[in-house]
């Protein structure tokens, strides 16, 4: 036996870019995160060949989970062809050899910035959400060490107060995206800046969701079949964006989250935010045999 026979030949880059020690740390932190749903686990968060704030947290998780058979989908704001989604997809495929897809149904691993696809995810799929700010308490407590203590004490009074103040001032909860949500009845988390439309998709979902903030070095998770409940008062129900009645001007699909596209005449047109669902809807309308999966919303109403 020689030393050479025990080691792998030298390569300028590890498989999947990250070296084994970084992946080991991430695996351990992911397991911890799954064990304590919604609780932020600090991790080293290595530099990756992409700027901080551009999905480096999600990227590290994807690079750790990926293997040559993993079919990867990457979306940004719902779109597969967004420039940064294209860049991340290209990088993941380049360093892992994994096949890529645009179709939610085909994907094993979906890395997403700020959207959850409209088609229901399965138990065998993993959703990786990019997180700019992992701390739901940031707006009431910018100091991370104090906020960490508040989570430890389940001290969410100021969070509730903030929502109450919004109702008093504006007549409704004004929180847009990143709606603070109680996970497994214990930890308040930010679901990342997904629209309110997408938060109910996390509740008792079949799939595993991993949320990772690279710049802020925190990872947290929503395991399958776990409660995710937006913070609401008993007498003020949770409201998703008023998109149920909108129709996609391109595909004709109705009752999904839409992008608003300002028009020259001062009005707005709408198009599906989940771009590939839009493409598939158009293709089906044109007679192509395409698989459209079951969706979380039917005619704008939550189905599950």
């Amino acid at each position: 036996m020689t030393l050479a026979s025990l080691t792998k030949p030298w390569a300028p880059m590890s498989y999947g870019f990250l070296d084994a020690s970084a992946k080991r740390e991430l695996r351990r932190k992911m397991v911890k995160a799954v064990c304590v749903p919604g609780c932020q686990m600090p991790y080293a968060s290595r530099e990756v060949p992409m700027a901080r704030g551009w999905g480096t947290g999600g990227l590290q998780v994807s690079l750790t989970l990926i293997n040559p058979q993993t079919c990867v989908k990457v979306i940004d704001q719902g779109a597969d062809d967004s420039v940064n989604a294209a860049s991340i997809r290209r990088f993941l495929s380049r360093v892992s050899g994994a096949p890529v897809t645009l179709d939610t149904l085909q994907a094993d691993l979906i890395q997403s910035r700020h959207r959850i696809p409209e088609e229901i995810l399965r138990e065998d799929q993993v959703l990786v959400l990019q997180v700019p700010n992992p701390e739901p308490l940031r707006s009431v407590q910018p100091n991370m060490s104090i906020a960490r203590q508040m989570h430890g004490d389940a001290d969410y009074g100021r969070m509730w107060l903030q929502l109450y103040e919004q109702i008093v001032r504006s007549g409704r909860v004004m929180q847009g995206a990143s709606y603070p949500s109680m996970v497994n009845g214990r930890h308040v988390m930010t679901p990342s800046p997904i629209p309110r439309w997408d938060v109910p998709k996390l509740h008792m979902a079949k799939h595993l969701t991993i949320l990772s903030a690279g710049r802020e070095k925190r990872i947290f998770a929503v395991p399958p079949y776990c409660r995710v409940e937006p913070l609401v008062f008993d007498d003020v129900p949770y409201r998703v964006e008023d998109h149920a009645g909108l129709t996609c001007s391109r595909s004709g699909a109705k009752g999904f989250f839409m992008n608003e596209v300002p028009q020259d005449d001062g009005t707005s047109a709408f198009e599906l935010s989940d771009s590939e669902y839009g493409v598939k809807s158009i293709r089906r309308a044109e007679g192509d045999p395409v698989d459209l999966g079951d969706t979380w919303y039917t005619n704008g109403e939550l189905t599950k």
Partner: protein
Amino acid sequence: MAYVATRGGERAIEQSERLFRAELGQIDAARVAEVKQALPYLVDRVMGEASLYDEDLAALALAQTGGELYEAVLVLRAWRTTQPRLTVAAPIEQDDLFTHRRISAAFKDIPGGQVLGPTLDYSHRVLATDVLTGTPYDPPAVEPAADPAPAHQPSVSAWQAANDLVDLPKPDAATGEAIPDLTREPLLFPSKRAHTLQSLARAETGGVLALGYAAMRGYGQAHPTVNELRLAEAEIVVKHPNGTEFSAGRVKVSQAEVVSKKGERLGLGFAATLGWNEVKCISAATLDLNSKGAPKGSPTEEEFFLYHTEGVEASGFCIHFKLPHYVTFQSSLDAMRDAKATRAAEQEPAE
């Protein structure tokens, strides 16, 4: 198929990168060597902020990014993080530093002497425009001192400690793999001393200066006196698996000790970094000096300045705002419009 037709993402990003790189032209070993030779202080700054001491790689990072500093530091760090940690070098005591420059503002003279070394401090900052009109600038020859300064010198704080003026920090007994490594662990607060010093060592120079300057101007409790500023070379001593200790070479380091009166004793602030970077070390040491007991949320509080002087994170987050944010924006618009419409409906007079 309207959707498909609009898919220009992949091609667009490829071409935009080409456009950037085309401007820079060919990058070869000669250009890298030129950067390394012509811009040693810039190379030092990049090495310090990337916490990787390799002049060739730092010069390459600068050449490859056209001197976009944040990008240069990022590519270097991204390369560094994939490299194995082969060993941990022996600790370096101040007396062991091969010192090029060492000055103290606290005393007129200090044991070992004031050693000016290389500096622009007393130069007249006149642009050498003659160079552009064909008269090259040749630096006049240095006349060596008849009596050279000693290469190894004690720290000023050691003298102060011996005179019961300052309490030196307790020596850290951690060795080898037990030394906390910021690049392999998250930064948590209150932070480990090693993490604080490592974090300052790789902090972005401009950021440390901005916050350090704020402290110097009065947004901190302590006014710094530069106890000692040192530019030196440090011998990196590592152990071969067979037990032999040997030098793996020298690296340039800079460090600053600043003090201020705290009751009847002196408070001590310290910072060091790879490469020669005086502004960064004085600013960072000033922040360190001010951090003890600083109120939460103040610029001199450890959590505040360590987070906000992290250049790769700060610059990345700043430029991320260029990314589309239309989903979050739409979500906010929805709440705004609804609140406005509801208010308008409420204000209409009852029929």
